[in-house]
C-alpha cells in the first residue's frame, strides 16, 4: 500500500496524559495491595477466603500492570 494514501498514526493515549494515568492507576493498585496485605496478615486459618483473595489480587494486578506501563512511558522508556 502506498504511504501517501495512509493516515498519520496517532497513539491510543496522548503522551500528555501519561502522568495522570500513572498516578491514578498506580494509586488504586497500591491501595488494593495495602488492603490485600492487611487481609493476609490478619486472617486466621479459618477466616481465609480464596474467592476474596483472588478477586482483590486480580483487580490490583490489573491496575498495577497498566499503571506501571504508563510509568515506563512517562519516564521515557517507550515500550
Amino acid at each position, binding site marked *: *500500500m502506498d*504511504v501517501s*494514501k*495512509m*493516515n*498519520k*498514526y*496517532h*497513539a*491510543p*493515549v*496522548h*503522551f500528555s496524559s501519561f502522568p495522570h494515568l500513572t498516578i491514578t492507576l498506580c494509586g488504586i*493498585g497500591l491501595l488494593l495491595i495495602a488492603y*490485600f496485605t492487611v487481609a*493476609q496478615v490478619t*486472617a*486466621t*486459618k*479459618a*477466616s*481465609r477466603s*480464596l474467592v476474596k*483473595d*483472588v478477586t482483590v*489480587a*486480580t483487580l*490490583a*494486578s*490489573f491496575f*498495577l*500492570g*497498566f499503571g*506501571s*506501563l504508563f510509568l*515506563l*512511558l512517562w519516564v*521515557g*522508556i*517507550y*515500550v
Partner: protein
Amino acid sequence: MKAFSVLGLISLLGLVSSWKIANLDRSIDIASQVVKVSTLYTFENDGTSAEKQVKIAFSQEEADHLSFIAATIEGNKGKLKISKVAAKNANFVEYAIDLASPITTGHQIKIRVNSRFSHALTPLPAKIQQSESQFVVYQGSAYAPAAYQVATQKTTIKTAQGGKTLSATNIVPTKQETERVIYGPYANIAAFESKEIRVHYENNFPFVVATLVERTIEVSHWGNVAVEEYIELVHQGAELEGSFSRIDYQMDRRGRNQPALQHFTTILPSTARDIYYRDEIGNISTSAVRIRAQSVDVEIRPRFPLFGGWKTSYVIGYNVPTEEFLYNSGNQYALKMKLFDHVFDNIVVDKLVTKVVLPEHVKKVKISTPYAVNRKPDELRPTYLDTIGRLVIVVEKENVVTDHSQFFTVSYEFEFNDLIREPLLASFFFLALFGVVIIYGRFDFTIVEDPEREAEERHQELLEKLANFVEQKQSAYAVLSAGKQHLTNSRNQINNKLGEEVEQVKKLISAAAAEKASELAKYDKNVFDLVDNYLKAVEKSTSKTGGADEQQFVQKIADARARADAILSGI
C-alpha cells in the same frame, strides 16, 4: 552491400555513437572536503534514429571516489534513472541515463549531472604544525571525461574562500583568478580524452570524516519514535605535528579558519524533543539547542578541538512523535524516515549503519530505499515487556555524503492486540506475585500442632461472626425507629395541612362538602393506628415474620386507601 551490412553490424554493437556533446559546462567545487561536480551536458542526437539513452563517463580514479550521483533534465526537478554500464575504455567508467522521452535526430537535450566525490583531496604537506594552514592537492583532468565527442567545453574549479592557490597546471587556455581556476574553452575533444591537472591550494576546512555512523530508529506504537546515533569522527586532513597548545589555540588570529573542528551544528527534525548528547565519559562539552521554524538545531562543541589525526566519538539521541513519521491504514503501517540524517555540513561518512527496531510480532516487513543499500540479516532485540524480542532491520551503506540524506520507507503489518499485550504482561507478572502470597498464606509452618490455639482461633472467629450479626440487627432497628419517627412527623404535618384545606373548602364551597372532606382525616387515623400496631407487633417479635398479620395489615391499608379515594372522588 557487404560494406553496408558491416556498418549495420557496427551500429548494432553500438560502436558508432549516435550522440555528440554540443556543449559541456563543468563546475568543480573543492572548497570543502567533498568534491562537488556539477556538469551541464548539451547532448545532440547525431544518429539516424530516435534515442532514449545517453551515456556519461568518469575516469577510473574519479569512479573510485564517487559517492553520489544524480541526473536531471535542466530546468526540471524529476530525477532520471541512472545505472552503471560496461565501459568501452578500460580507464573509464560509464553510466547510462534513461531519458523520459526519446530524442529524435538533430535535437538537443540539456542534462545536469551532480556528482560527489569523497576522499579525493590529498593534504600536502601531510603534516602541519598548529600555527600552519592546511594545503591540499586536487587531481583531475582539464578535459571533462565524456563518452562522446565534445564540441566545446569549459571547466571552472572553485577553490576555498579566502585561500591561496599555490599552483595550478596550465593547459592553454587557463585562467587563474582569486578563488577560481578556469580551464577552457576547448574545442572538439574526442571521447575518453584526459589531460591531467593538479591544483595545490589552501583549504582550511577540517577534513573530518565519520568512520562510523550507527543510526538506530526505534518505533513504539505508544506514540514515539526514538532516534539514536553513535558517531565516530576522525580528522583525516593534514596531521598535527608537534605539540598542541591551548593558549596558542585561543589566541590564534585565524579564529574559525583554523584547520580544526571547533564546533558544529546538527540539524534535527522540528518535532525533536528529549535531546541528549554524550561522549565516552558523559556530556562535559558545551552544547546548545536552538528551536527554529523548520528544525531544531543542536550546536555541539566537543571537549577538545579536533586537529589532524585526532578522533572523537559521541552519542546523540532524541524522540519524535509518531504523527510525523508513522502512517497507518487498518493493520498496515509504514514508517517514513531519513535513512541518513544531518550530522554537519559537508560530512563524509565511511560506513553508515541504519537499524530500524520495529514492535514485537510485526509481519510482512518491506523496506524501500531511495538508493541501493546492503541489507544485513535481521536481528532480534529483547527489551522491556518483550517475549521473543523485537525485529531489527539492518541496512548498511558505505561512502555516504550529505546528499544521501533522503527518506526511506519500512512497511509492515501490526495488530492492536499485540500493543495491549504489553500492559497485560505486566499485570500477569503482578498476579503471579499475588498468587505466591496467596499460596504461601495457606501453608502451615508450625512445627508442633497446637489444637488448643486452633480451637481458640475458631472460637474467636465465631464470636466475631456473632458480633457482626448483632451489629447488623442493631442497625436494622435504628433504621426502623428512624422511619417511624419520620412517619409520625410527616403525618402530623399533613394532618395540619388537611385541616387548613378543609377550612378553605368550607369557606369557598359548602359546609356539606367540608364535612365529607373531614371524613378523610378519620380514615387516616385508622391507617395510622394500623401502622402503629404493625410496627409494635414487629418490634415485639423479631423471630416472627408474621405472615397472617402482615397480610391483614396490607389489606387494611389498601381498604383505607380505597375509601379515601372514594371520598375524594365524591367531593
